[in-house]
């Protein structure tokens, strides 16, 4: 299992009208790994995740998940294959209760029959969600909403989760808690792609990292062998 390629992005170009957001981006994520994608605001990190999950369509290049082409597929098909996105800004359904948000997470036909069982493991992972299951989700704190967004993404029993800026706007102690849970999720065999602006924390959590600058991969490697000097240079482009 160790070197099965879960996600393979090759030569990806993505445009928004006339603006090119990604330039020939190639990344590889091995099954069972935590891979970090770092970059400043506007480097194309979210575009990469959104294109992988099908919210955007690439103009060139391919995306393969476990050997099957998934580029250009609509998001609902990508989810059914086992790729789940925790979107930037959490985007929980505000007028649904916590329980209903999780319920909708198991919408794919494959996960529906196992709903109560998966729900149990998620309540174990995030006990606060169980406590607040009958609350409207817009009454949750930011950290709780982030946990809900992660829990909801896990309800479809994904093999790969893509996390977009999960620490944005949260207190350090909350972020630490969420990263601890991510490690647990990873130990259960789920591959994780982390997109962050917070360099230190996400490098510490990752087995492999890519640094994006203005839509291009400028540095990649194992975080342990990257020097601070290299990372800074790649991140800021100086």
């Amino acid at each position: 299992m160790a070197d099965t390629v879960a996600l393979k992005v090759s030569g990806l170009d993505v445009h928004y009208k006339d603006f090119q957001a990604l330039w020939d981006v190639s990344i590889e994520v091995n099954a069972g790994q935590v891979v970090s994608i770092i970059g400043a605001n506007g480097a194309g990190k979210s575009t990469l995740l959104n294109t992988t999950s099908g919210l955007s369509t690439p103009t060139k290049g391919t995306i393969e998940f476990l050997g099957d082409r998934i580029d250009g597929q609509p998001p609902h098909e990508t989810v059914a294959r086992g790729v789940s996105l925790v979107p930037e800004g959490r985007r929980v359904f505000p007028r649904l209760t916590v329980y209903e948000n999780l319920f909708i997470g198991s919408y794919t036909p494959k996960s529906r029959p196992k709903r109560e069982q998966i729900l149990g493991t998620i309540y174990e992972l995030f006990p606060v969600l169980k406590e607040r299951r009958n609350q409207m989700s817009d009454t949750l704190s930011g950290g709780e909403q982030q946990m809900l967004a992660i829990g909801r993404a896990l309800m479809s029993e994904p093999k790969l989760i893509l996390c977009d800026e999960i620490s944005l706007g949260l207190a350090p102690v909350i972020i630490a808690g969420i990263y601890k849970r991510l490690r647990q999720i990873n130990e259960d065999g789920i591959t994780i792609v982390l997109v962050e602006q917070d360099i230190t924390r996400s490098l510490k959590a990752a087995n492999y990292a890519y640094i994006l600058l203005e839509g291009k991969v400028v540095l990649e490697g194992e975080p342990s062998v990257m020097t601070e000097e290299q990372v800074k240079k790649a991140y800021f482009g100086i």
Partner: protein
Amino acid sequence: MQDILQPVLNGILLGGLYAVIAIGLSTMFGIVRLVNLAHGDLLILGSFLSLVLASSVGLSPYWTILGVVPVMYFVGFFVQGFLLNRVLGKGMEPPLLVAFGLSIILQNLLLLIFTPDARSLMTRITLMTIQVTKSLNIPVVYLLDFLAGLAVILCLYYFFQKTYLGRAIRAASDDEGAAQLMGINTKNIYAKAMGIAMMTAGIAGLLVGTTFTFYPHTGPQYLIIAFGVIVIGGFGSMKGCFVGGFILAVAQLLGAHFLGPGYQLLSGYVVLLVVLALRPQGIFGTV
């Protein structure tokens, strides 16, 4: 005092019918922010479908519900899936224009097929009443309208609160992109939602047909009633539909009682204006 009991009672019963007339329009607005201007005409299409079925099979019009409701589901699914979905997300006007066009086409199609004659779905119970006291009668048709309205709204409430499809529809109306990420094919869900809205319109059409006379061009009249109910009760709220239905119907019948039948519509709209002035979002409205 005695003599206002009858119009109030009739108004409350009729309010149940007004609620079913409005619920489909309100639901679709709540979900896709779509103002379906063809709602009234689709409702009248339901009345004519029921007429055709009843006269060809020879059963009581109430039995035609078994045929009309499924047919209306597919009509709604088609209208949303093949017409309205194409213009969603392109601003307010295009869906409005498509719905308006559909309304004109439907009216003229019905006119062509059925001629402009007045029609009604007569049954044995059309003229039946239940005597409560010497001066108070319950028209059985109105009672059936009320019960059907209550049943439709309760079913719809259960559907939206408890089922995968219902919750998925609510999720999609909260955040379309996030709903897609849950594995929901939102376009398909919208078509199904319209199908369900049209099932309620089909039931409303049947009830309207058994209660009043209808013509190919009566659709807009019911669209206006639906708008009135929703504006009073609040757009997108089911509770609001029911309460709005009562208020509008009671106001109309009281107006007719005190001022004469000519003032029936006017007194309904006066109440509408009052609500608009005091609480523009409607009684249970959030937008």
